[in-house]
């Protein structure tokens, strides 16, 4: 038995080596770097340098506030939308189901740059179709890129557009695993379709929804593409800067790796904390 295990590990060695070098080591290394002052060479050990700065840094709190705001609004809206989409997709009345399934999944496949470019076009002040539509129903044009609130809304809309379908497909799989006869039993029990949804479908979907929510929270905590490409590096004036962007700015622009590492660890820690709280809130009652 021992011997057989040893053989297995020998076969695994190449993979484990790569895993150690490119995964484990960076994780440890960045943790160590976060305790070093890296603004000037040589780097020196100074725990308060980055972590101390973090606690008092208005840019950090701005990014944190923006990230959490997006998280708190966008994730619930997107998950609710995904549930509705999944239910519609699962309806026996729907024709051309395969087409919809593809359409829902397509945003994930489209290149990030292409999608961001399209969003910039659609929301542009004078030529964008969105403003034209607003105008045509008698509403004021919105300057999506120069005001903080519309810019934040735009980020949330874009992220929701990109990931709602993906989540809907996952939730659809959960829906399809609920046996049909449970609904038939409920129909015989004179339970209306709406009540069936709230008392049977939703409770039974809970594990899948929690899974989607956890994935989305982790994704949103690291949000980068949209504020970088669509609102041009967190514009206007840092109004949509997220933790991911701040990290990029510190690490790649200022080459301040110590501070960037501290931010990265804060992001990961927050994602884990929020996820744990959520798992605890949604736990199976004993």
């Amino acid at each position, binding site marked *: 038995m021992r011997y057989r295990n040893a053989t297995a590990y020998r076969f695994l060695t190449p993979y484990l080596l790569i895993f150690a070098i490119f995964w484990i080591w960076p994780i440890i290394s960045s943790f160590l770097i976060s305790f070093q002052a890296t603004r000037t060479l040589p780097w020196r050990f100074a725990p308060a340098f980055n972590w101390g700065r973090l606690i008092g840094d208005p840019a950090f709190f701005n990014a944190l506030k923006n990230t959490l705001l997006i998280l708190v609004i966008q994730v619930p809206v997107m998950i609710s939308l995904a549930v509705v989409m999944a239910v519609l997709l699962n309806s026996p009345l729907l024709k051309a189901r395969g087409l919809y399934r593809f359409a829902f999944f397509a945003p994930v496949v489209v290149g990030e740059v292409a999608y961001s470019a399209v969003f910039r076009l659609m929301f542009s002040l004078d030529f964008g179709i969105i403003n034209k539509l607003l105008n045509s129903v008698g509403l004021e044009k919105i300057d999506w890129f120069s005001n903080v609130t519309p810019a934040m809304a735009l980020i949330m809309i874009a992220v929701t557009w990109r990931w709602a379908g993906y989540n809907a497909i996952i939730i659809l799989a959960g829906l399809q695993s609920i*046996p049909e*006869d*449970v609904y*038939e*039993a*409920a*129909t*015989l*029990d*004179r*339970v*209306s379709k709406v*009540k069936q949804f709230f*008392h*049977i479908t939703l*409770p*039974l979907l809970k594990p899948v929804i929690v899974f989607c929510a956890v994935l989305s929270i982790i994704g949103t905590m690291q949000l980068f593409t949209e504020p970088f490409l669509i609102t041009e590096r967190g514009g206007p004036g840092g109004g949509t800067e997220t933790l991911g962007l701040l990290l990029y700015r510190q690490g790649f622009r200022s080459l301040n790796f110590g501070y960037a590492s501290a931010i990265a660890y804060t992001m990961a820690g927050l994602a884990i904390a929020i996820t744990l709280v959520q798992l605890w809130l949604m736990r199976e009652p004993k």
Partner: protein
Amino acid sequence: MAAVTLTNVVKRFGTFEVVHGANIAIADGEFVVFVGPSGCGKSTLLRMIAGLEDISGGEIAIGGKLVNDVEAADRGIAMVFQSYALYPHMTVEQNLSFGLRMNGNPKADTDRRVKRAAGILCIEELMQRRPKQLSGGQRQRVAIGRAIVREPQVFLFDEPLSNLDAELRVQMRVEISRLHKELGVTMIYVTHDQTEAMTLADRIVVLKAGNVEQIGAPLDLYDDPANRFVAGFIGSPKMNFLKANVVEQDQRSVTVELANHGGAKLKKPLCEALPAVGTEVVLGVRPEHFFEVGEGDCDIPVKADVAEHLGSVSYVYANAGAEELVVEREAARQRASGDHFTVSIKAERSLLFDKTGARIR
């Protein structure tokens, strides 16, 4: 309490017709079993009665009221599903009370009904468990309990015991029978197990490929089947069918020669039109209706291929080549493969069918 009447009921899925005009009249308080091979339309019929499947043609009445266009929930029926269909996220108690709670039934009445159902089925200790913490038999009880709580006029069961092991199946069968006596309501029960049908039913409806083949009391179907299908379906092991030719005819009887058994002849009295000399017919003999040499009207020699000894009875499978026969014997423990012996057929314990399978009486 309600009678259930099906008049020329037809069911089509698209253009594919699966039930071809069923006429079944079920009396108030009766226990009727739909039986037939897989795919014959038993579940479809039951689901049409329940209102889970719409009716393509004909009429279904429950308690004298036409229900073709009545919602499933308003038909006064309750259904027990083969897969139990319990709500997985609710406790047993919540499963039982769900329908009533959702419809704003007064809490005191709901509690009373749930308690009563739990009492009838002896599931009081399970009330706080969830379905996945229950055994198959316990789940089945809960499913039946959920039906009882509705206080329906008609119970529908769709193969409720098919997921249980043999012992539990016998136990639940007895319990369902007891339940029927206790509640006195109409029950319609679907199964493909003829033993369940024979033991539970007041009357059996035998179905084949969407057609009602025969309706009758269990022993009537056993003694007097309308055709070869019913004769073969009711009774276990299956009835033997022996190829035969009519060789002689007189006033009230025909003599048939058994083609595969060395020209053995049997004189069979009949009361309806006699088949002509030369007609090919089929003689049906149940395994338990082979007698000792000399006791019957026609002796045939057989050679045992396989013998199954179950203790109280033995089944001998004989003559594999020409025409396989199953012979039941109470005292055949010493019979072994390769034995030659002779059995005897009694005219009054055999049935005659024509080539299409219709009974010749």
